[in-house]
């Protein structure tokens, strides 16, 4: 019992604290039909904010007598609950604001691109071989494994899927055309682009974001070194050079996978496969795929780096920025690929 009525007086007793909140509240609610003149708190042993809150809610119209000083203080502190300021929640306004922020973000990205290009070209001498090698190892070599596996598997899957259909038309040998051209022009560049966007854009953002938070970027600037040419340029150069190589590699592996499947399911021996390959896969087709490499590379690099530089002086925002750079990187790859398709169509390549 935390309260009882005697001679028209409500006596509070015991521990009016958070553990007992529910019980006390129940007893106060049950009190409704009883009447009393005032409240006596002399037997109230302990009061905390939760008990004080209940007294202020349920017994505010009554005199509280004989309350100990320390309990009185809590009662005072738990009165007068402040109001929260209204939360602006105009959906229309938020939409406009969101759109505006997106727009300024794109403008900022474009101007960032210009700044990077101008700055890093002007200060090429800051470029250090050490950084280039580091990037080569981090960005290039470490993605080889997954590209190997994925490209090979994609080659196998396409060949396998289409072999049944081609066989019904007796068009077995066209498997070579189908696989090699689609891999060289479209699939390999896309696989490579998406994987590098996932791996490198995120790691660029995390690396630069961390450097910003720990004030390394500012430190470099005080040394008169442009962070663009020391940090950004090696990344961009590596991607520009390495992506075409990766695309070539991925195409070869995909074709290899298809070759093995063709031998097994369609009975096309490797030498026949190669012969056909030499006839159909022109250098133009190969080039059409491989030129996407540098463009993808620049896009991935710039997006990753841009999100990194946008990190504010708070470590918490890095995770958020990393996610954003991956999503934007992959989106950019697919968008650019679509643009290439339109251009190729137009130029009839």
């Amino acid at each position, binding site marked *: 019992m935390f309260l009882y009525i005697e001679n028209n007086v409500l006596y509070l007793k015991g521990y009016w*604290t*958070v*553990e007992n*909140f*529910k019980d006390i509240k129940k007893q106060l609610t049950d009190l409704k039909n009883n009447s009393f003149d005032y409240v006596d708190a002399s037997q109230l042993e302990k009061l*905390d*904010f*939760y008990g004080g*809150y209940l007294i202020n809610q349920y017994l505010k119209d009554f005199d509280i007598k004989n309350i100990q000083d*320390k309990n009185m*203080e*809590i009662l005072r*502190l*738990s009165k007068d*609950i*402040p*109001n*929260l*300021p209204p*939360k602006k929640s105009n959906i229309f306004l938020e939409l406009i604001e969101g759109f505006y922020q997106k727009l300024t973000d794109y403008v900022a990205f474009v101007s960032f691109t210009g700044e990077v290009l101008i700055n890093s070209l002007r200060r090429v001498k800051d470029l250090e071989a050490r950084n280039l090698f580091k990037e080569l190892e981090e960005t290039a070599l470490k993605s080889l494994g997954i590209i190997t596996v994925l490209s090979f598997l994609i080659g196998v899957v396409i060949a396998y899927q289409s072999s049944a259909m081609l066989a019904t038309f007796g068009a077995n040998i066209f498997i070579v055309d189908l696989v090699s051209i689609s891999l060289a022009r479209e699939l390999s560049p896309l696989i490579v682009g998406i994987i590098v966007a996932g791996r490198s854009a995120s790691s660029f953002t995390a690396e630069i974001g961390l450097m910003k938070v720990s004030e390394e970027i500012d430190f470099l600037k005080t040394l008169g070194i442009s962070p663009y040419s020391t940090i950004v340029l090696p990344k961009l150069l590596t991607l520009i050079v390495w992506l075409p190589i990766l695309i070539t590699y991925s195409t070869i592996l995909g074709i290899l996978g298809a070759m093995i499947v063709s031998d097994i399911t369609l009975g096309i021996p490797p030498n026949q496969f190669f012969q056909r390959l030499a006839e159909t896969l022109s250098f133009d087709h190969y080039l059409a795929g491989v030129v996407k490499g540098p463009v993808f590379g620049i896009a991935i690099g710039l997006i990753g780096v841009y999100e990194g530089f946008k990190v504010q002086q*708070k470590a*918490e*925002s890095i995770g958020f920025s990393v996610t954003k750079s991956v999503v934007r990187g992959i989106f950019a790859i697919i968008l650019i690929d679509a643009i290439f398709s339109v251009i190729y169509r137009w130029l009839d390549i």
Partner: protein
Amino acid sequence: MAGYIIQVKDLVSKYGQKVVHRGLNLGIKEGELYAIVGGSGAGKSTLLKTLLLLKKADGGKILFKGKDISNLSEKEIEDIKKRIGVMFQFSTMLSSLTVGQNIIYVIKKRYSIDYKTALDMAKLKLKLVGLSMDTFYMYPSELSGGMKKKAALAVAMSTDPDILFLDEPTSGLDPISAEEFDKLVRTLVDTTGTTIVQITHDLGSLMFVDTVAVISKGLVVYEGNPQDLTNVNDDWIQSLTNTTRFRRLLDGK
């Protein structure tokens, strides 16, 4: 006079072979502001972990309100843990929630309290530590250092703990904010009756506390009021009280 809320008797703590405390004694009285000081590596954080029941003692006893915690059931230990609040050095809040949501989250995780009450409590606690209601909607990352500490304090106080531990609460604050925080802690002890224990490197904070315990070489070498610290015959305390910063503080008093 109120009794002890926590007593530590002959505490021994080890990490493997390394002995951190070798028979440490101290007593924290109910409703006081208590400070633990000591050089780097003296074992303050280890003591805190032990008092928070996160690390088991390798020897000796810990009494909570006179009861030896090693004799208590798991349920009783859980109940004690609920009565302990803590603010770690880099402030104790979830970065994915706003300050207001943080307070409500802690309340609802610990006790079955209805949302309306929890919401009202969040507002009261923000008012208590002197933060404006705008901070209710703000994320920890959007707060300045001083505001973040106050917000973390509001979170730590959200369920009215019997005892509250603060690990280096004023580190990283400018002297003005640090003193403001020290005064706030003092006021909270005086008005709410909460026992507050702070681990500190900040000599300025010592002037506001009731009791200071000095840890050195695995023992408490002094436990008493901060003013008498200068008379204590111990190497580490002598070096501490001989620092210019400490002299200035005493002269300023």
